[in-house]
């Protein structure tokens, strides 16, 4: 069969449905992938399977009643969601928060960032095939953080710990000792992940140079968080628009070089080290005072609108609240970081192999609860 005949052999494209129920789509995401053999020709995403109309619910709840719902937006980092929503309402009311509450919020948000990143890198390693071992190590560390939260606010995943103007409980006695122990326990573990995964030859081969996200494309798709910093853009809301007491904290922002899957993973590992530093400093400088707030007061907020961005582990979580003077918000828009992070998946994935789709999806660390709201 000489060369001329091979041209008219019709190769058919191979359409496979990845999702909505698939072992590694990080939630209920449906990817329609057109394959030519192993190479991805085109990939369309279908979302909305976890849509709970959070914004419609917000319009029928008072400001305090909506706090438990914010836990369920990004259910892996619900402290940061609480923080985002509560600071947005405080900005709307321009209400001053006691100093001790600010420090507690920073400690709790940074600990939750570590817990969220642990799940991010654990599932990323699992997607690359390191079956369950790194994931179990990450969950073992995350369990320690969750025990700390369990003692602070009484719940393990949906904390509902922050209130408008402060926090629900003060820190229990002896908790700073446990947090110090955790920091000392966690630091060598991060070095273990470096030897086990980051510089592992197969891990490098699978994730280096895959799904390269150029700087301009990242900004154009308004990607944010570790995915943006991995592409070399030094952009972190905790430094750009410092809220709470982040300007008093001294930490640096890890920035990647060429924005591929490995860089996104590496930025998350470095961010965990920085978060440990922040928690240490915040714990040291914890002032006295009463951070708690009585939940009963039904706030009536003067008409107006406010937009507040906070640095969620997955990116910039923005709350745009419009109030019309009643006890219910008139409109509440949740700008979820994973929503824009996922929008560029088809762009990144064209031309890669089937195994790389899962690698890129894992490295973006998206979360469906946040995307579908």
């Amino acid at each position: 069969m000489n060369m001329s005949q091979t041209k008219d052999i019709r190769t058919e494209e191979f359409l496979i449905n990845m999702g909505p129920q698939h072992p590694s789509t990080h939630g209920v995401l449906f990817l329609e992938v057109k394959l030519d053999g192993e190479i991805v020709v085109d990939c369309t995403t279908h979302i909305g399977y976890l849509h709970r109309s959070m914004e419609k619910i917000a319009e029928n709840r008072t400001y305090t009643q909506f706090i438990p719902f914010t836990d369920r937006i990004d259910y892996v980092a619900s402290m940061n969601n609480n923080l985002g929503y509560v600071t947005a309402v405080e900005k709307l009311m321009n209400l001053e928060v006691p100093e001790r509450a600010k420090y507690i919020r920073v400690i709790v948000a940074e600990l939750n960032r570590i817990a969220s990143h642990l799940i991010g890198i654990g599932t990323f390693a699992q997607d690359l095939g390191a079956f369950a071992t790194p994931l179990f190590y990450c969950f073992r560390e995350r369990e320690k953080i969750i025990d700390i939260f369990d003692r602070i606010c009484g719940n393990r995943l949906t904390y509902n710990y922050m209130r408008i103007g402060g926090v629900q409980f003060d820190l229990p006695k002896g908790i700073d000792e446990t947090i110090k122990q955790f920091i000392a326990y966690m630091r060598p573990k991060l070095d273990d992940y470096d030897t086990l995964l980051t510089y592992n030859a197969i891990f490098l081969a699978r994730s280096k140079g895959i799904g390269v996200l150029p700087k301009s494309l990242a900004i154009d798709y308004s990607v944010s968080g570790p995915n943006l910093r991995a592409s070399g853009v030094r952009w972190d809301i905790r430094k750009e628009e410092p809220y709470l007491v982040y300007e008093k904290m001294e930490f640096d922002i890890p920035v990647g070089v060429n924005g591929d899957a490995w860089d996104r993973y590496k930025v998350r590992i470095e961010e965990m080290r920085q978060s440990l530093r922040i928690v240490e400093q915040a714990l040291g400088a914890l002032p006295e005072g009463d951070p708690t707030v009585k939940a009963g007061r039904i706030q009536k907020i003067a008409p107006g609108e406010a937009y507040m961005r906070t640095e969620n582990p997955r990116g910039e979580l923005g709350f745009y609240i419009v109030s019309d003077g009643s006890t219910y918000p008139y409109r509440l828009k949740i700008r979820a970081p994973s929503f824009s992070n996922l929008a560029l998946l088809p762009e990144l994935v064209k031309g890669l192999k089937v195994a790389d789709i899962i690698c890129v999806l894992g490295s973006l660390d998206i979360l469906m609860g946040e995307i579908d709201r």
Partner: protein
Amino acid sequence: MKKMRQDEIFADIKAVFPEIQEEAGSGAAVIPKDLLLKVARYLRGEPLAFDNLHCVTAIDRKEKIEMVYILYSVSKRRALTLKIYLSPEDLNIASLASVWRSADWLERETYDMFGVVFSGHPDMRRILNPYDWKGYPLRKDYTHPEFIPKPRL
């Protein structure tokens, strides 16, 4: 973003587009509907370099639909909120997908929730609700077709 810088940006835009006003409460820049594409391209351009369309959403004020665009300039560390008032009858507006690529999904969500049609959008479909869903949920006059009563105690 300090208030002063906001006036500075505002003055720059006013120089080029006189029709722009500043909204009382939030300090957002309000522009008429048909100017959107021109203003967007100007904002994207070099002097102001707003390279990041952070969020597109709408507010149903019953007598008008308020379109809100929140823009950022990552290089120049600046923010701007752009507002456009639409009358509830003709709910279509130019799509910014050609200027910022993040607009694609954000506009689809606004269409899905409010019914604002973006002309020139590459793929004008619903994004969160099922594709054949009737009605626009976040409209104030939206009544849920079959409301499942909560089980009585």
